[in-house]
């Protein structure tokens, strides 16, 4: 039986790898989901046939599965703007599951003879509980910030980093002591408590703009906690699947950090969005504005139009209007492309999903690095709900907080149409020189209404 279980786990591991491999293209991606489901079923069945499982416990396991599914199914129906919150919540559940299993393992090892943990597994168990519980509370905080239950602005106080690092150091020392002598049982609850506390403190100073990175890091922690569980249980499937997840989170956080020109430590300890030096010398600058009708006329003359969407577009629920605009323009033979900045939206790739939902073909969604060389040939750039990702200050102004961040070079295009409610600086509170440029025309108003007007004028003059 044991051999069959191991074989089931082996096949499941291979299927998990294929599942991720097939995510390399939208054409094979759904196959990847099926491979993932098959792998998970195999893993669960392989575990259920383990002779160590008591027959009388199956009904309870079945009940737990039913309850879990009953919560999980509605969670998959959330609107796509809420996917980041759902993801964070899901990391929290994952962390909780790992943490609880770790707690049971620890106390079980004392209750039955011959189950002593040993150094390696005690250390792994400490890592499991630490990562599990800090992911739990950290992800709940992140979900709260994304859902705006918890204030999204960074909450900071003096000596914060010292307190956070101190907490972590204390937790690690507790782990080391426990590993050396597992009989200091009383230390274990302290580790749990410190992990829960550290999760909250870690996320508290992180602002809304950094959420894509934070979610990725928590994704990585959730995976690593499963790896630690695998070490404790001597289960290679747990290690393999957890490592895949951990590396995925790691790569996504690196991409997010690069897209914002920041380091890990800077994200975690820098409290972004707080240190805005108010460089308000904009009083003398003039802004040109256009009505939607004028904007529509400009677009009609174009042959290549690039739309730069930001999270503001999703907030205004304007993506379906943008799709109508796309239809109107393509009908006239105008090429329309979407320029996607890696941090547009609230989690990695969020903008692509929001546009795909509006039926915009993914073949017209272009990454920042691919669109930038083309920018000088672009006739019209339309900025919808984006701000910092098109701010040329990132290239030119060394004193700007976003200096060095890679941006979409909208300012290199022939004409820029920026749809914006008012001249108020956006989310991060940074003045955007693009709006004062000669080639820029501001179209003031709610994104959904303005894009709707543009569509009306375009279809009217058709």
């Amino acid at each position, binding site marked *: 039986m044991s051999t069959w279980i191991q074989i089931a786990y082996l096949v499941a591991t291979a299927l998990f*790898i294929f599942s991720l491999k097939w995510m390399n293209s939208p054409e094979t991606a759904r196959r990847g989901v099926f491979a993932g489901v098959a792998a998970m079923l195999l893993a669960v069945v392989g575990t259920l046939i383990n002779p160590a499982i*008591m027959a009388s416990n199956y009904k*309870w396991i079945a009940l737990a599965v039913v309850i879990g599914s009953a919560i999980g199914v509605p969670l998959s129906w959330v609107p796509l703007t809420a*996917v980041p919150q759902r993801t964070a919540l899901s990391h929290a*559940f994952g962390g909780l599951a790992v943490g609880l299993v770790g707690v049971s393992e620890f106390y079980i090892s004392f209750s039955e003879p011959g189950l002593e943990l040993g150094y390696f597994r005690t250390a792994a168990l400490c890592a499991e509980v630490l990562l599990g519980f800090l992911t739990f509370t950290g992800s709940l905080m992140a979900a709260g910030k994304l859902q705006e239950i918890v204030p999204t602005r960074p909450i900071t106080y003096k000596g914060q980093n010292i307190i956070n690092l101190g907490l972590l150091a204390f937790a690690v020392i507790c782990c080391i002591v426990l590993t050396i002598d597992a009989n200091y049982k009383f230390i274990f609850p302290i580790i749990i408590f410190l992990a829960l506390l550290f999760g909250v403190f870690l996320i508290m100073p992180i602002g809304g703009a950094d959420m894509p990175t934070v979610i990725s890091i928590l994704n990585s922690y959730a995976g690593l906690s499963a790896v630690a569980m695998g070490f404790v249980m001597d289960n290679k499937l747990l290690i393999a699947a957890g490592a895949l997840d951990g590396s995925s989170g790691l790569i996504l956080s690196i991409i997010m950090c690069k897209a914002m020109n920041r380091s890990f430590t800077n994200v975690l300890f820098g409290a972004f969005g707080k240190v805005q030096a108010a460089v308000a010398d904009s009083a003398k600058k003039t802004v040109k504005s256009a009505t939607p009708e004028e904007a529509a006329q400009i677009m009609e003359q174009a042959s290549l139009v690039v739309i730069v969407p930001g999270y503001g577009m999703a907030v205004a629920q304007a993506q379906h209007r943008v799709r109508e605009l796309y239809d109107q323009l393509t009908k006239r033979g105008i090429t329309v492309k979407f320029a996607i900045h890696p941090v547009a939206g609230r989690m990695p790739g969020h903008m692509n999903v929001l546009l795909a939902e509006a039926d915009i073909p993914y073949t017209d969604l272009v990454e920042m690095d691919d669109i930038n060389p083309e920018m000088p040939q672009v006739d019209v750039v339309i900025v919808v709900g984006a701000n910092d990702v098109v701010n040329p200050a990132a290239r030119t102004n060394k004193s700007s907080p976003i200096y060095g961040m890679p941006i979409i070079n909208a300012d290199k295009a022939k004409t820029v149409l920026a749809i914006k409610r008012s001249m108020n600086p956006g989310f991060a509170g940074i003045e955007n020189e693009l709006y004062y440029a000669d080639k820029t025309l501001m179209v003031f108003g709610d994104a959904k209404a303005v894009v709707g007007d543009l569509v009306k004028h375009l279809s009217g003059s058709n």
Partner: protein
Amino acid sequence: MAGEESPDTVRHASGQGMDYIATLFVFMLTTFIGLDVIRRVSRLLHTPLMSLTNAISAIAVVGSILIAGQQHTEYKFNLLGLVAIVASVCNIVSGFLITDRMLKMFKKREGNR
């Protein structure tokens, strides 16, 4: 690694005969595979990727079932395992469903242009 001839290795909690180095090898190799495979994932699909890995990291369900299903000296251990199953299954179900829901939306340009 657990051999089939030793029944007590089925019980995860027994530490004897565990090959630490083999588990570390698995960790190292799957991390390298993971880094390489994920690097090739289309940037279009990073959100579905994350919800998919959410579901995959709910592999913790394996450990949860083992804790919940085995006989322990006290029921509270089984109860903790059952709560862990609820949390993991919730992630598995919602993770896979929402990933598929998102992936269904990714369409190519229609050919009629």
